[in-house]
């Protein structure tokens, strides 16, 4: 006597043995199989025949496994993986540094009145995190242009860069936006107004607009990959001007890591490199011999 439930369990076991192991995928395939068995049964086929016909129509485990295996994402390109780790580690270090500074303030506040710097610290952390994410996005653009100059980008490397830009560009826009709002609140608390007309505010706003634009055009595939990557490099120029250029302009460069004297020179060199990569990126890829 044919036992349909037992036959379906056996079919499931064979699928698992062939490598289709995800329970949800098996559930979905089983659901389909049952629909087909039902339709054959309604057409007057006996259970065993309905089962065999439905299994044949669904396809064998081998070809199905091959198709499902194609869905597995290629691992990220190693320079991209390093960037993810670098970003994570640097953000942890910044958070630890700020937490330590806040603890020092907390100890000091017990002995006397000191304004609570939490809002300012949150602003600094989110701004640093946002600008760093923007620089990583720019680095991916440079990586694309530099690599493309010597080699054709392989099909698994381009998606890896795409995914990284899809991650870092909205993160950058979001964090800089949060930092701007926090900065405005701090300004309101201490200076009595939300906007001070500081060139840094303008710079942050430009970064937010640029990276929202980059995220949207990239997500919606409005531009070709090369144009997107050039936008990433141009983002480097905007962020460096917003972060360091504005510091030079408003005289707050002393805050920048004690390298105030070298900041204008360093910024100029950095901008020159970005422009160089932009120009290289705009040129057609060098002809390569077919291998």
């Amino acid at each position: 006597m044919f036992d349909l439930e037992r036959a379906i369990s056996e079919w499931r076991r064979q699928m698992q043995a062939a490598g289709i192991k995800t329970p949800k995928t098996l559930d979905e395939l089983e659901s389909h199989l049952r629909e087909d068995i039902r339709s054959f049964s309604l057409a007057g086929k006996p259970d065993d025949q309905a089962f065999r016909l439905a299994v044949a129509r669904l396809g064998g485990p081998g070809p199905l496994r091959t198709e499902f295996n194609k869905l597995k994402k290629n691992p990220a390109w190693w320079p991209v993986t390093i960037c993810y780790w670098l970003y994570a580690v640097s953000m942890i270090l910044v958070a630890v540094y700020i937490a330590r500074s806040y603890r020092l303030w907390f100890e000091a506040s017990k002995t006397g009145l000191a304004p609570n710097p939490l809002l300012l610290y949150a602003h600094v952390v989110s701004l640093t995190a946002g600008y760093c994410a923007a620089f990583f996005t720019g680095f991916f653009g440079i990586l694309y242009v530099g690599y493309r100059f010597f080699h054709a980008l392989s099909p698994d490397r381009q998606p890896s860069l795409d995914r990284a830009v899809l991650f870092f560009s909205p993160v950058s826009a979001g964090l800089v936006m949060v930092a701007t709002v926090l900065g405005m609140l701090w300004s309101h608390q201490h200076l009595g107004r939300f906007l001070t007309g500081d060139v840094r505010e303008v710079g942050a706003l430009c970064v937010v607009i640029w990276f929202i634009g980059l995220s949207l055009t990239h997500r919606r595939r409005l531009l070709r990959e090369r144009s997107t990557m050039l936008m990433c490099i141009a983002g480097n120029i905007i962020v460096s001007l917003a972060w360091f250029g504005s510091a030079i302009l408003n005289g707050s460069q002393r805050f920048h890591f004690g390298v105030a004297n070298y900041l204008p020179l360093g910024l100029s060199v950095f901008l020159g490199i970005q422009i160089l990569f932009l120009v290289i990126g705009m040129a057609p890829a060098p002809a390569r011999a077919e291998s």
Partner: protein
Amino acid sequence: MIEKELVAASTEPLVLSLLATGESYGYELIQEVKRLSGDKIKWTDGMLYPVLHRMEDNGWIKSRWAEMENGRKRKYYSIKKDGHQALKEKRAQWTLLSSVFSGLWKGQNV
């Protein structure tokens, strides 16, 4: 019968077009394609699911499990905003191809 390469190339636009009319599930999508093509488009049924999963990974469609009257579960798919955009692009490509062939074959007795 339509050649398998052409069937494979048309799977995504067909699924997106069907889901643009409303939520559906794998088995129903296959039946609908069979009906609309007069049984001339034949998918190996199981092959539709990797395609659906890939489209879900692409962010074109989303899925949800729903319980049926008999207590069993069924996975429903529906189109997302990015899916509408992808459909728009695919539609433009297929329309272009169609018009090129129409122009080429106009008046020819092929």
